[in-house]
């Protein structure tokens, strides 16, 4: 992950987000009870190159959404720093906000049901000094880019559209303000099978046309493989493996990634091999390597010492003692 300057769009250093595990009210404070924290994202350092699609995979609850939200400034880091083109986020948050967007899994939840498509799509432009005509032009342009006919949709409400059309509207809203970086949280998992590929192709088209940088969160390995340039694998708030898509798909290094691939249904493996053991607690994460209680290869060192990400082959990193020399 050595980054040399200009082609890196986003870099994080020791990014950490803790959530209060339960309400910490006045009484608790008076009683001096220790608050419990969920370590949703724990000391994560990643870097995303301009124009690349980075895919984040991992178990439910491993902190993928939280990491995505941190990157688009919807969540404030507990510690650590995010750099946009080398400048710390805390120094220019409003400039960054204009350049980032997020698209959610369920378009019905992310589009205001009471507004029509025109109002939904133009919303990002309302706070900018743009004439009405210009705004309309850009709404039309954005809808056209995602393959929707303005005259057909502009007066409709989200519930009058099909799932695929709704997700296109969400995309149109995301791209209308000319962002550089878009986080897509499970963009196709609420869609029907035959619609999924339409939306995936659209994402690729848009990226080729406008040179967006994507962070795609998904649990569908086939989607990940299709759309990714770079993959990050998360487990219990930590990045456990990263590499180019072909490296990770061909030769997953971390035992967790290997097991994940075996338990995810695809058209290739008929025999799913479910992971054994309990999912890890994020409040009291296992000591040492967080995966050791479920890892078939765990040995003594894994229970006490936390492995760091090491470069196993060029560009392919894993945080596992199987690969740390000593």
């Amino acid at each position: 992950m050595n980054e040399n300057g200009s082609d890196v769009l986003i870099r994080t250093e020791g990014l950490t987000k803790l959530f209060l595990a339960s309400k910490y009210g006045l009484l608790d404070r008076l009683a001096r009870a220790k608050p419990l924290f969920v370590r949703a994202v724990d000391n994560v350092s990643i870097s995303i190159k301009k124009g690349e699609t980075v895919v984040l995979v991992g178990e439910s609850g491993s902190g993928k959404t939280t990491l995505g939200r941190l990157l688009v400034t919807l969540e404030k880091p507990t510690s650590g720093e995010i750099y946009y083109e080398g400048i710390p986020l805390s120094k220019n948050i409003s400039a960054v906000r204009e350049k980032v967007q997020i698209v959610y899994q369920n378009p019905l939840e992310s589009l205001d049901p009471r507004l029509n498509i025109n109002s939904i799509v133009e919303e990002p432009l309302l706070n900018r000094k743009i004439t009405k005509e210009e705004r309309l032009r850009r709404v039309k342009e954005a809808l056209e880019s995602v393959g929707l006919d303005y005259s057909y949709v502009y007066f409709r409400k989200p519930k009058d559209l099909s799932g695929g059309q709704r997700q296109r509207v969400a995309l149109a809203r995301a791209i209308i303000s000319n962002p550089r970086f878009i986080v897509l949280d499970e963009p196709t998992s609420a869609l029907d099978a035959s619609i999924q590929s339409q939306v995936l192709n659209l994402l690729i088209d848009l990226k080729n046309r406008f040179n967006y940088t994507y962070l795609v969160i998904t649990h569908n390995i086939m989607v990940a493989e299709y759309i990714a340039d770079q993959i990050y694998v998360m487990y219990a708030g930590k990045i456990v493996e990263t590499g180019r898509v072909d490296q990770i798909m061909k030769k997953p290094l971390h035992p967790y990634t290997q097991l994940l691939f075996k338990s995810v249904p695809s058209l290739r493996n008929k025999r799913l091999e479910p992971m054994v053991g309990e999912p890890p607690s994020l409040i009291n994460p296992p000591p040492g390597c967080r995966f050791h209680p479920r890892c078939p290869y765990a040995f003594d060192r894994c229970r006490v010492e936390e492995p760091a990400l090491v470069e196993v082959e060029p560009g392919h990193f894993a945080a596992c003692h199987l690969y740390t020399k000593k």
Partner: protein
Amino acid sequence: MPQLEIRDLEVYYKVPFGTIKTLFGIQLDVEKGDSIGIVGESGSGKSTLGLSIVRLLPPNAIARGHIFFNGTDLLALPASKMKDYRGTGIFMIMQDPFNSLNPVKKVREQLIEALRIKYLRRNERVPEESLYDEVLKKLKDVKLPDPETIMDRYPHQLSGGQIQRIVIAMGLLLEPSILIADEPTSALDVSVQAQIIALIKELQDKYKMSLLFITHDLSVAYAVSEKLLILYGGRILEFGNTEDVMNSPAHPYTEGLLKSFPRGNYRDGKLYTLQGAPPLFTDLPNGCVFNPRCPYAFDRCYQEEPGLYDYMGRKVRCFLRHE
């Protein structure tokens, strides 16, 4: 004789504007021990099919045709008799699992009640404590955290995924001869999903239970089933051995679905896409339901509806496969 024979099943829904036909001439045989994946997009009628077998369709639905379960026509039975077949005969894990649990009873009572029914119908006497233990074990099998405390909760005190697993546990406790599972893993994380699938398959092997597994996800159906049924616009478009269907789909829709499944990386080429969207029941095309999206459609497809033809050991609703 097949364990379950569905003949000419049609289901209609009465709505304020009239009646909407939702299932069209369904024919299906389920042999003992079969595992059939029922795949289709949202609104294609998957749940309707499952619900008509257990006769739990909503009150505004009308079902016509025959569903023979070990020779008895379930659709002809009075409602009071139907009760004897539900549960231990045919059990359905509902898509919306919250509705299959009684909101005012604790999880424990409901699961133990299910077990009691099972043993009553088998004329077996089992002590109370062992009922409790059996329930507890099953909850552990479905990977519920802290099963003891969960047993003492009411359904509304549980998460969607937890409720889903409790209903699965109930289905597994009853050991029905036919288990219909309607999107049973939709609220679960992939690793739990894999565990549940493994558990269902294990039980199937052990008790020769037949399984109808409803899902919209072809890859899940592939992992679960031996036979695959493709439903579209309320019709069976293709039915056959899962491996065969996956390897050489016979219906253009199945073919399109499989081709549009992501494969490889985008740099190696774009994904195939099926244009258009699934049909609306209020606005079905003339002729074949799939014709607006079909790349091979020709004149006849717009004029008459193809039948369900035998083709290489499968059934396919397409003129192209009709010699």
